[in-house]
């Protein structure tokens, strides 16, 4: 077995592969134009351990379709650069619940991966949706210490608008996941 190639930081100039349109998964000239479902935005601010915003991060999004399938009919991928205020914002369709290990069901969730200068590898986390009754049964959330679970749960800020801030380090540090 050859171990996987070492991860390296994306550095400060990764924007050369940034295409701002990709933050809108429903863009009219994209693979999901006309896809049916509940349109939502998922936004947030990334801050570091000193409380400073992270203005140079790449956030990648991966999610199931509104029925909870990854079969590819819906292209559940997006990429968004944080702005000078550390903000990211995606436009997408709300995903459905996804089968989990055993006979469990994973509550609807969106996977976010953060790359940046100063991060030697990507940080993976999830955004669940506050108020969903299925959160209580989610097999991944069940592994997270209760007092940190809130870092994985987006809050509604308006009709179809969800917000999840990400704290890389320190008080209120986001729970990052690895398989």
């Amino acid at each position, binding site marked *: *077995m*050859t*171990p*996987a*190639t*070492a*991860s*390296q*930081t*994306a*550095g*400060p*100039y*990764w*924007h*050369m*592969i940034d295409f701002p349109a990709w933050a809108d998964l429903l863009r009219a000239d*994209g*693979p999901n134009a006309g896809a049916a479902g509940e349109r939502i935005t998922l936004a947030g601010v990334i801050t*570091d*351990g000193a409380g*400073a915003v*992270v203005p140079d991060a790449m956030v990648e999004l*991966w999610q*199931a379709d509104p029925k909870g399938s*990854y079969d*590819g009919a819906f*292209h*559940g*991928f997006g990429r968004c650069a944080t702005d000078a205020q550390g903000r990211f914002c995606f436009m997408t369709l709300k995903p459905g619940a*996804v*089968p*989990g*290990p055993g006979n469990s069901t*994973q509550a609807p*969730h969106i*996977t976010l991966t953060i*790359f940046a*200068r*100063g*991060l*030697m*590898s*990507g*940080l*993976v986390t999830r955004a669940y949706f506050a108020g969903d009754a299925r959160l209580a049964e989610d*097999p*991944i959330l069940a*592994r*997270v210490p209760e007092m940190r679970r809130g870092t994985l749960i987006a809050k509604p800020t308006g009709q179809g608008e969800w917000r999840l801030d990400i704290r*890389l*380090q*320190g008080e209120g*540090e*986001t*729970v*990052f*996941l*690895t*398989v």
Partner: protein
Amino acid sequence: MVDPIPFRPVAPGSQPPLDLPSYRSTAHRHPSQPPLRMPTTLTEASAPSFTPAWYAPHDDLSVVDGKQALGERMIVAGRVTDENGRPVAGAMVEVWQANAAGRYHHARDQHDAPLDPNFHGEGRVFTDAEGRYSFTTIKPGAYPWRNPGPGWRPQHIHFGLHGNGFAQRLITQMYFPGDPLLAFDAIFQGSGDDAAKRRLIADLDPELMRPDWALGYRFDIVLRGRAATPFENA
């Protein structure tokens, strides 16, 4: 339904730590808590399908509007496999790099080296059924950065890869054999054990060279592989 085959745990020494004091920018950005280990679910075992139809390939960085960029023209090629040695077909490979003078075509790059109007420095290719990829570019220059030490990064090309499971997502850097700056580079030196560092250095490959036209470097990339055994509850 049947659970997805889990990914192998990360091999010890194969990956850099997030807390790397010699790389100053990690100080406030590395999480203080270890990541929460979880089983591979459908979410991590599935991956977006990136097709050339929606993600246009661009495999020649050495020319802009028919005009040749300055620098040593080279072909960079290799194979993308998983840890089990199986080719990863249809992987999207994104690359970005500085020009021959060590300057990025990027608004925030303030390095006082010339821009080259005939070099933008970003590309996108896909692996074939055997996991092979190839693109043409010019050799990037070294460039200065603000980090304790000699303050110059070795010549490198940034690579981003998407495989066939989202847990395989990788961003890395390719370096060049014999570059004396490697010995002083906090990012390269912090990559893991000696074997991990060696895997980040391309090989000059006579078979890839084109007489009277281009140098050739081989850079093979390994993505995480699936395990034979089920997830163990730690």
